[in-house]
């Protein structure tokens, strides 16, 4: 490139204006300014273009034509106004809400969580858990609970505190992991019932684990 030549030649004859006879450098300088500029400019452009071409040609993302007009015939059956075909994914079909907590045996430190389960397509509720250390949670009835559209069910969940020191008393969003299954297979959905559950759970923990004065009740 022209630039490189500049540098290589520069060293010996920086102070060379006194020297005799035109070198390459002098001859180059003698060329009309317009020509020199043109040569330099086109050389630079050629380099840039070559580089760009090499890059563009190299790893390039799979060459997909950009929004070919013919392709737009395809999107006409796009989801938005279609009813999703049945069966729905369990996560979409289920509506599980929290009803309340009933304290059970104080000595054994148990309580019951009431849930309300509705569904827009048939599914079974096979398992409930809450992953706290110091708390064991499970379905009250043995075997899965079947929920059909239009037939909402109450689901009883029993909980037993196994260790009081390990319980987080003021966590903001505790949740239940509910395993749902239908033709699309089992799916574990976290049900985060919100503030009412948080308060009820904290209340249950406090009552069953004796008064802990240090933790003054506080609503987040």
């Amino acid at each position: 490139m022209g630039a490189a030549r500049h540098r290589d030649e520069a060293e010996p004859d920086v102070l060379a204006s006194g020297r005799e006879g035109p070198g390459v450098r002098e001859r180059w300088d003698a060329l009309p300014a317009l020509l020199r500029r043109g040569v330099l400019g086109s050389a630079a452009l050629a380099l840039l273009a070559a580089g760009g071409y090499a890059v563009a040609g190299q790893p390039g993302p799979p060459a997909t034509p950009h929004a070919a007009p013919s392709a737009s015939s395809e999107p006409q059956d796009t989801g938005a106004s279609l009813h999703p075909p049945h069966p729905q994914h369990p996560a979409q079909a289920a509506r599980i809400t929290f009803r309340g907590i009933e304290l059970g045996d104080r000595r054994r430190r148990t309580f019951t969580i009431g849930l309300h389960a509705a569904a827009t397509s048939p599914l079974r509720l096979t398992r409930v858990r809450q992953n706290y250390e110091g708390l064991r949670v499970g379905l009250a009835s043995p075997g899965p609970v079947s929920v059909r559209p239009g037939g909402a069910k109450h689901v009883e969940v029993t909980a037993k505190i196994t260790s009081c020191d390990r319980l987080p008393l003021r966590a903001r969003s505790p949740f239940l992991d509910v395993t749902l299954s239908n033709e699309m297979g089992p799916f574990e959905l976290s049900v985060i019932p919100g503030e009412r559950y948080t308060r009820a759970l904290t209340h249950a923990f406090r009552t069953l684990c004796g008064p802990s004065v240090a933790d003054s009740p506080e609503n987040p």
Partner: protein
Amino acid sequence: MRHRSLLILTTAVAAGSLTLTACGSRGDNSGGGSSGDTKTLTIGLDAPLTGDLSALGQGIKNSADLAVKTANKKKTVEGVTFKLEALDDAGQPASGQTNATKFVADQKVVGAVGPLNSNVGQSMQKVFDKAGMVEVSPANTAPELTQGTAWRSGKKERPFKTYFRTSTTDAIQGPYAAQYMYNEKKLKKVYVIDDKKTYGKGLAATFRDEFEKLGGKVVGTDHVDPKEKDFNAVANKVAKAKPDFVYYGGEYPAGAPLADQAKKAGLKGPVVGGDALFSAEYVKLAKKNSEGDIASSVGAPLESLDSAKTFMKAYKAAGYKLPYEAYGGYAYDATWAIIQAVKAVAEKNDGKLPGDMNETREQVAEAMQDVKFDGVSGAVGFDEYGDTTNKQLSLYEVKDGKHTPVKTGTFKD
């Protein structure tokens, strides 16, 4: 000679900037076309189409474009052709506001989709509200946008009647990740880092709060400047503190190098963050060091939704160069919601839209409150705050270089 050089320079600069403007305005002016007696309505779109977050922004733009094309194809609203006008905010609140002003001034624009960043959304809300024009964001997650600044104390108040969103708030993202890491992954020591921006700071704060209440230990905190790429000093501090994992409140352009550098410095354990880390770009930039990292994001995994499968197929068929990314489905739904609102207005007025654009805008904003349809992300509808009624979120873990869903939750607040 000198004059000539100057001339050449000026010409070069002028030519260069002209090329650039040409690039900028190349947007999406398709779909307009010649209309016989049909009316053409523009839907504005604002997202970061360039810069660090452009991967997410381009996904939003393409998905909105797909919705508009679908509506025109199917003649969803009789006698109305929709046109998408996309403007770039580069993630800057000031640019977002300028774009909002532009949309409002354009008498053809009926409503707007966007933006991506919560702080940009904040700067646009007022402009749209004054004009009575509806704005539906597919990606803003800061709770205060719909529930007012006092949402944390439980005093929720909707600040702007024309603002809606199809994504859920991040109020629950931090706590959900905290519960998962503490109770299921059994990782109990965390180092919390944020980028000091509206989104990142809020997210890190909600995470930290919940994690500490669960009994977890925060072994250190730090903040980074998201404009930089060198986080080695912070990474060394993290490695020294030996946490089980790192929580980062911020976006992937800084999150990815931070994760990379922290793991090189000796961090054993994943980097966890919110929906702004949920991008294929994150994996690409942090390379092997992204393996095992976890990100929460809004909604159920699109792959698990039947409604989304049609969307993914159509998106592929339309041949967009870039993927739809984290918010594509929500952008499609946001655009579709505006189209549905326009349809509702047309039906109310016996198939004709009001002649006056301001009148149309107000009626569309009103109609938006009652819009309901089965969208890409599930059932779409809006509650009294303008938040989506479909409140779901998911956790994803990077496995073999891909974000794989590990857990999905549904919540009520």
